[in-house]
């Protein structure tokens, strides 16, 4: 746990700071699938970016119950002005060390992922991209670096509805995939790849030299935000593996392998207990599982489209 960061969402910036401080705090309640997030900040660039990224998911009622109350603010003390920083707070507590002020958006996105991954155990949560086409859900469980986010970003700009690029949420009651569309974090070379792939998509700024390298955020498509109350029936589980020069290969995986790999890609499988075991068995039995090796994004997208074409409603 990081040392306490006594931040407050107040105060004004000077001309020396790149991020202006707003006179009025920016407060946003937004729906992200089954969750409501309340964010408050005076950091002007952050509020403008979030308005652009998530405006369609904003909730009107200030009285709406929020699952997370998140503050993004500059700390007290010298770091308010000298190499300024930003603190992420959850219910007024700081779970992380401060970040450079110019990395406010990455900190917000990663911090919110942490909140969801550690404090939302109500459903089975897989580390996976999740998309939908024709009512059927596609899960892309993967370890970091496998190309999950890049493939998810590409698919949601080629006719697939984005459910999430990070959390494959499987509802225990009925096995449905629940949407939680958020900005897709892309790293390093993937940024240019997706810019070329989807030239009309909205990107936030590129943040060089973060803890994960160069990072940029692709806004979730408006349709994904508008339809985030619509679950999907899982039909395919595809374990992607990007490798330079790899030939496209889609290999069917037996259920015993799929179950094991899904359990290893779940944030909360073990604490879900017997319920998680049953949900994972149901998911494994319901969905066809494959491993996908690829190096060319167009080919991988076309292969996923062929899967969808073969699906019967």
């Amino acid at each position, binding site marked *: 746990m990081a040392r306490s960061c006594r931040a407050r969402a107040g105060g004004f910036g000077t001309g020396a700071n790149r991020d202006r401080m707003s006179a009025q705090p920016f407060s946003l309640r937004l729906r992200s699938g089954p969750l409501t997030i309340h964010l408050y900040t005076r950091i002007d660039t952050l509020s403008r970016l979030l308005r652009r990224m998530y405006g369609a998911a904003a909730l009107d009622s200030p009285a709406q119950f929020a699952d997370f109350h998140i503050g993004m603010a500059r700390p007290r003390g010298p770091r308010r002005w000298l190499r300024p920083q930003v603190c992420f707070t959850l219910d007024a507590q700081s779970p992380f060390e401060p970040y450079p002020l110019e990395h406010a958006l990455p900190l917000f996105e990663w911090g919110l992922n942490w909140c969801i991954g550690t404090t939302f155990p109500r459903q089975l949560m897989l580390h996976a991209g999740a998309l939908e086409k024709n009512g059927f859900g596609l899960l892309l469980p993967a370890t970091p670096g496998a190309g999950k986010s890049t493939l998810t970003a590409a698919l949601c700009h080629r006719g697939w509805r984005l459910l999430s690029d990070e959390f494959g949420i499987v509802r225990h009651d009925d096995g449905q995939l629940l949407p939680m569309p958020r900005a897709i974090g892309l790293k390093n070379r993937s940024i240019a790849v997706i810019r070329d792939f989807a030239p009309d998509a909205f990107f936030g700024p590129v943040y060089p030299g973060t803890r994960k390298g160069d990072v940029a955020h692709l806004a979730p498509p408006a349709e994904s935000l508008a339809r985030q109350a619509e679950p999907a029936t899982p039909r395919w589980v595809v374990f992607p593996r990007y490798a330079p020069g790899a030939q496209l290969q889609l290999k069917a995986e037996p259920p015993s392998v799929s179950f*094991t*790999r899904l359990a290893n890609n779940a944030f909360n*499988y*073990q*604490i879900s207990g*017997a319920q998680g*075991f*049953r949900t994972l*068995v149901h998911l494994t039995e319901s969905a066809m599982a494959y491993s996908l090796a690829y190096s060319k994004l167009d080919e991988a997208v076309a292969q996923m489209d062929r899967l969808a074409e073969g699906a019967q409603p």
Partner: protein
Amino acid sequence: MGWMRGLPTEVRLSAPDDLLSHEWPDGIVHVFHPTTGETHLLNAFPAAVVDATAGRSRRLPELVEEFADLLDSPQDQVRRWLDRAVLELEASELVRIETG
């Protein structure tokens, strides 16, 4: 490690009927441990035990490599996991070991 002791040449592992488990079409069984919340693979392990007792412990690196690829995990982590799981399965009242 369990397979360094004098284990029988053939081992069959089975679980009590009231244990939460699921058998897949290929015969692999996943068993849910009610106390630890861990999930064990049953039928995958007899291959490891039989290989070791047949003196082919050199196959262990191959098994580790195979499981590491299967689970997308580092090999040293898989090695520790395999060692521990075999011992736990032997010591646990969840399974019976039948010799043949």
